[in-house]
């Protein structure tokens, strides 16, 4: 549907999207490494574990999405569900 005259953007190339995907991995790796140089002081004891916030965020989000997928199976209805009754 894209008009032929429209030039392709940087993001339209699959290889650039792949670059972004890899960059996210690299940034996460660097953030773990950075922990070696930062004196951690949190309000809660477990915050001092290595990479706690990173792994917590990762697990939380994967669990969130998988749980939401299951939830959707039970809750999903057609768009005009309420209009029909």
């Amino acid at each position, binding site marked *: 549907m894209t008009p032929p005259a429209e030039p392709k953007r940087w993001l*339209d190339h699959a290889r650039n999207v792949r670059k972004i995907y890899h960059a996210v991995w690299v940034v996460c790796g660097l953030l773990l490494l950075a922990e070696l140089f930062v*004196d951690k002081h949190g*309000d809660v004891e477990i915050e001092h574990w290595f990479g706690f916030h990173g792994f917590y965020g990762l697990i939380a989000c994967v669990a969130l*999405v998988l749980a*939401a997928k299951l*939830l959707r199976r039970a809750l999903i209805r057609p768009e005009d569900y309420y209009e029909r009754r």
Partner: protein
Amino acid sequence: MNVAELSPGLTLIFGSVLIPLLPGRLRSAYMILLPLLGLVHLSLLSSGEFGALHYFGQELVTLRVDRWSMVFGWIFMIATLISAIYALHLRSPLQATAGFAYAGSAIGAVFAGDLMTLFVFWELTAVTSVLLVWAGGGLSAYRAGMRYLIMQIASGMLLFFGALVQLNATGSISFEHIGLDAPGGWLIFAAFGIKCAFPFLHNWLQDAYPEASEVGTVFLSAFTTKLAVYALARGFAGEDLLIPIGAAMTAFPIFYAVIENDLRRVLAYSLNNQLGFMVVGIGIGTELSLNGTAAHAFTHILYKALLFMSMGAVLYRVGTVKGSELGGLYKSMPLTAIFCIIGAASISGFPLFSGFVSKSMILSSAGQEAYLITWAILLFASAGVFHHSGIKIPYFAFFAHDSGKRCKEAPANMLVAMGIAAFFCIGIGVMPGPLYAMLPYPVDYLPYTSSHVLAQLQLLMFSALAFSVLMWTRIYPPELRSVNLDFDWVYRVPLARLTQRTGAALRATLSAGERGVSAALTGLLDRLEAQRGPSGLLRRSWPTASMALWVMVMLLAYLLFYYLG
């Protein structure tokens, strides 16, 4: 009586009356001038209680100025200015008039020093804001508006009865710390809870906000729920029950946000989640946590308005905000996309953006007071909010699969409004000092420590990693044209059927009875008809809500005459 003894809410309410009377450009200029006047009005106020009225032997305090009311007064007025600019492209004055009256009512409520004044403005926010829902147009907006209005009026009624119980027991209607054990405490708590979208009382929010007009939702997102947060902080600070309630509010809506297709409804769910943080802060009740609640309300109003404005601009240009229909809009609306990303970064709490300096105060206080489970839930919700508001909203609207839709960039007035909100989002994030100086209690908190910044960056980037991996592997649930059942199903389907059937049965019984009686009384009725006419006052039936409305109108008229006289 000088202007510094009048509630700044009245400036907007009485000012709104002029909006429909002014033509074209003059009206636009006036819509910008009015909130600016409101800001001047705020700057003239000094601490204390003013504007005392006497009504049925009670003293009403229409203007209570202290650090709590001022911080909410400022942000409400700023939000009014931003929303007004966002509304400048509208030809019809209706939405702006309703919006200003609504904003003024919310500000009036914030400065109310007693429960009756609070009640009057509380109900006024309901009746003015429903017009913004109805401005969305169509039958579904009308119905959602009715459901919204019923809930809001119910909240007001509970507040009214709660105030009466307090008056009866203590002889005073002053609005100070209440607590659940106080007479009328539970009634008032429930009233605030409805407006604050507590779990199971929350559906009006996700129901009505996405049905409102693009301008309406921006107004709505700022005032009603934050007024409730303010009222809770005043009346129920340190109430332990608020901690689990708030924690539940942060967690449950994000599951819905992940699978919701209407992006403005996703934002409504995340609004609910953000309210949860504020409610936890009120429940903990320390100076740090209450400061956190006030600060978070302040920053939240700005970034939530920014997000709703960006989605409103998409709705205005494309005609839909369904994730399944959008994608690739960064090509057509690059500035809107940038503003949306700034709002997304702020709500996610990225360092240098406003959410970072406010949300962390609440998390810190939960950790310091050893509410470990609550702390863990808040951390989960922080990751989750980045996931669905921070990434999902900009991703599905502006990037993702190119929908092929091409449109114009948002109108200039919308861009200016978004620009102002974005300026505040970054400004507060970079320089939190001025905001901290406005908070109710002295602030002894440093958001920018290397440890805190690293922890937050890890949390967010690993959440982004989760999103990327799930997208890359196609595990992430796609956006589907659908609705998802929420608690409102209970009253929209089974309860609605039950009332319909009961109503039908009742009507049948009544009309049978009526036929019998009317046959006997025909002669008498005929005479009465002749006297009073077919639409005479005595023949109409009056619902209870209209009774409440008239009480309110009376109070308002009284207020008006007092000021004029």
